[in-house]
């Protein structure tokens, strides 16, 4: 079960059922990468989309790595953009209004509306599908020889 969580399809690989493992891995990674393509790194946000992250975390460590990368590229002066109070940080607000390249680059990486929702949903669904694979690795008897 641990192997199945560490990498999608890992449970099948541990049982030497490579044909099934490759297909399952490809499916979960397809959903994961398509979610990132649509929603960007902001589709995985442990801090601000906590409930969604419970499902996304079932994809394995890749979800935590993505969340770490998101927090790094979404920060200005060490503070995540969603945590910045623009009223209390007038200098940052002025930089935004002046279209400062550093601030605008961080703003561009934030997902809004449908693309954020759909990207988040793709990755959460990938995690839930991986949960099926994790449970099978732990509790089910092998289905077929492949």
């Amino acid at each position: 079960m641990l192997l199945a969580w560490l990498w999608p399809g890992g449970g099948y690989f541990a049982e030497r059922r490579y044909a099934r493992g490759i297909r399952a891995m490809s499916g979960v990674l397809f959903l994961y990468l398509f979610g990132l393509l649509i929603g960007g790194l902001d589709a995985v946000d442990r801090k601000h989309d906590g409930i969604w992250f419970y499902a996304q975390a079932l994809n394995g460590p890749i979800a935590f790595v993505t969340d770490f990368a998101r927090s790094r590229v979404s920060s200005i002066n060490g503070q995540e953009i969603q945590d910045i109070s623009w009223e209390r940080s007038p200098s940052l607000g002025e930089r935004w209004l002046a279209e400062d390249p550093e601030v605008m680059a961080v703003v561009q990486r934030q997902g809004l509306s449908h693309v954020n929702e759909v990207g988040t949903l793709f990755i959460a669904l990938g995690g839930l599908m991986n949960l099926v694979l994790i449970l099978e690795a732990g509790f089910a008897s092998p289905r077929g020889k492949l």
Partner: protein
Amino acid sequence: MPFIEPWHALQDLWWMMLIPFSFGTGMVYKAWRLPDFKRYWPEVGLFTMQVTLGIAGLGLVLGLIIDLVLPHA
């Protein structure tokens, strides 16, 4: 930059993402469900079509209820 920044151009086409959504789900489901993989891709294609049409149909029915039935209820 792809995979880092959101694909903002899809903002008006988000509903089209139902097709890759169904396809990815089908890839995992059929990898788990089928006893062998002789008909893997045809089964994934059929699953994608069924789920896409099913969800689109549900959306259509809900839309009709909201636009046509509820205003007269």
